[in-house]
């Protein structure tokens, strides 16, 4: 059996979700826009799923736009917002700790004439709030920040970010990339006070191909996909009732025992580190203390992350060296660089991302495999 420690790249589909999804595929094949009874049944499944999703994320049904995944949601949030609000200052505030879906989207907007403010990170991986306050001295159209960093697990202080925005530029909208949030920490859209939040189904145990963008009432976006006018014209394309159902189900499973599971995952994380210590492995945790326990960026000086990844995969243990979406990059890891981690150490980092499904045995086996690889491969 493989030992899977790459949950932040993709969470396996929960078996219950898969079974229900397959049943939905058989039952709800009609187009939810059709007015015959089968179409209405498909439409009902969408409505129910939307209601359940809204309950879990603590938002209104009509604040949810279902998309194909996190990248589409982020594109819609950023491009859709600035396009719909052309009179706002052509300035976007984001950070050096963002996922490629954000950095590439804002880079594209830069080519269209927008000014970008890239907030520096503190050594703990969070946005530097002094720099943020400084950036808010001038009006901006949009703030887009990651909530839980996908590489380090660092959690940006959304409450303080929203507070500063309210105090200094109350007309500037805030979008948060919440792709790694759900299932890792509690979240309420209503209480967060942000204007938009993106998320992705396959990070919470739904199949790939579905995500969401929450848009607070009163926030206007321009559609980025045009067509039949589904989802209030904001995201055309035939809706996908089985995937919507699977998403709602997965969200429920990912959140219903969240606090219990966070404790379990934190315990697994500390077991891993303590096994490594016991086995005299030289390691350095790069994830900050406030990180969610699910994401552990850890470096083994003298052993390239990629080499360790290969060595572990030969033992059927699966980790990554950073965001899977950027695994083809050959440059230094920009998030670690922004945190001030020396390039040489950053090159020795692997990301171990855990879930409550992992067992203590798996953790022990992983620590032993790491220890063995370090002994064999690091020059003494």
């Amino acid at each position: 059996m493989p030992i899977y420690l790459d949950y932040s790249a993709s969470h396996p589909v929960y078996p219950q979700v898969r079974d229900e999804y397959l049943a939905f595929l058989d039952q709800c094949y009609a187009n939810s826009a059709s007015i015959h009874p089968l179409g209405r049944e498909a439409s009902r499944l969408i409505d129910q799923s939307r209601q359940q999703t809204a309950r879990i994320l603590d938002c209104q049904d009509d604040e949810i736009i279902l998309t194909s995944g996190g990248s589409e949601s982020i594109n819609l949030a950023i491009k859709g917002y600035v396009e719909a609000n052309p009179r706002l200052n052509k300035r976007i505030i984001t950070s050096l700790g963002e996922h490629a879906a954000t950095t590439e989207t804002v880079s594209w907007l830069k080519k269209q004439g927008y000014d970008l403010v890239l907030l520096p990170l503190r050594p703990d991986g969070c946005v530097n709030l002094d720099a943020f306050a400084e950036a808010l001295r001038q009006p901006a159209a949009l703030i887009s920040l990651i909530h839980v960093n996908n590489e380090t697990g660092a959690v940006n202080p959304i409450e303080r970010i929203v507070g500063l925005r309210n105090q200094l530029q109350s007309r500037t909208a805030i979008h948060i990339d919440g792709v790694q949030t759900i299932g890792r920490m509690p979240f309420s859209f209503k209480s967060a006070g942000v204007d938009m939040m993106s998320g992705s189904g396959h990070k919470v145990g739904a199949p790939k191909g579905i995500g969401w963008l929450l848009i607070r009432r009163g926030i206007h976006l321009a559609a980025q996909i045009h067509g039949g006018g589904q989802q209030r014209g904001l995201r055309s394309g035939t809706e996908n009732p089985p995937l919507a159902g699977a998403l709602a189900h997965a969200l429920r499973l990912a959140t219903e025992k969240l606090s219990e599971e966070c404790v379990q995952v934190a315990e697994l994380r500390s077991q891993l580190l303590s096994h490594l210590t016991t086995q005299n492995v030289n390691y350095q945790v790069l994830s900050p203390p406030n990180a969610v326990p699910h994401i552990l960026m850890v470096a083994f000086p003298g052993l390239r992350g990629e080499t360790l990844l290969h060595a572990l995969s030969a033992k059927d243990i699966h980790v990554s060296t950073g965001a899977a979406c950027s695994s083809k990059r050959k440059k230094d890891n920009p998030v670690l660089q922004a945190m001030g981690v020396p390039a040489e150490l950053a090159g020795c980092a692997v990301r171990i991302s855990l879930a409550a499904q992992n067992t203590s045995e798996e953790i022990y086996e992983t620590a032993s495999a790491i220890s063995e690889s370090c002994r064999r491969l690091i020059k003494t």
Partner: protein
Amino acid sequence: MFDHQEIILARFGEIALKGLNRGQFERRLIGNIKRRLQPLGRFAIELRQSRIWIEPVEEIADFEPILAAVTSVFGIVSASPVWRFGAEQRDDLQVLKTKAVEFIEQLIKEGGSFSFKVESRRSDKRYPLTSPEINILLGGHLLQTFPDQLRVDVHQPDFVLYVEVREQLYIYSRVVKGHKGLPVGTGGQGMLLLSGGIDSPVAGYMMASRGMELQAVYFHAFPFTGDQAKEKVIELAKQLAVYAGRLRLHIVNFTDIQLILRDHCPQDMLTIAMRRMMMRIAARIAKANGCRALITGESLGQVASQTLEALCTTDVVSPIPVFRPLIGLDKDDITQIARRIGTYETSILPYEDCCTVFVAKHPKTKPTLADAEIAEEGLDIDRLVEDGLVDLEEVRL
């Protein structure tokens, strides 16, 4: 309307200069073409008057892959898709006129206006017109038929309509360039050190173009190089096999040797020591598999291990000649060839290759043989070479 058959005419160059060995070269060339075309259908292949005629035995829907396959065979200078007709009424001029019009219609169906000329060759002198007469008659007829689309330009025409009078009539216009060179298999066998970078596949291509049959060796250093790096090299070997024909790739498990070298040798001599080991092992595999030369993608001065001094230190450990066809080429020129032969995109995939693992920050650029020998002092070289020959993996492409 009269029927025609579509066939392919392939021309060869350098072989024609061969003397008594010519037959052997031609047989090898035909054999290589046959093998290359085998997956694409059944063909009758015939050599006549220093040209190769390739006739499909069964109906072929698309000639492009066949043309691409034929022109990728070393030894072929060019190839053309040809219409053959007139088996029964060859000397009836109406036959030639009708088919030429039909052929031109196909050629200009995209629209536009073209300049052209007709160029004829009459091998069978019994035909009622001479070559210049054919040119005049057919050119005039085509101009009359397509007054708006065609005009004559005998110096720089957009296309030439070639007519050949043999036992039947042949017309064609398109000439696709081949990769020239000599048929693979006429220049012995060589063992290519294939790394996964841009250079080594080009080096293999160049030696294959001189008729050399290739085998390749790749040094895999898992986990320093991942499986993706190995798959990349297999893919490169596959792309090389398009030109080189069959190719055997030998994969050496190099990790333990590399670790021993890393722990034993001074950092600034590590790459040289590693390359010397690779040469020794490659030469052993070469000899065991009938290869009488090694081939590398080294280019003088490109990196520290490719200075003259460095090359001398690696050269001496190989008991067989080391061919370095890129030695005098600029990186840009090598890249251009890589793009042309289709290996470039694979080569630049960002996976570690065996040569970049453990690269010293300041390697010695002018190592002496003594430096290399001192670096290896205390190592049981023979034993390490033997270790490298254990667990050899072979991939046939």
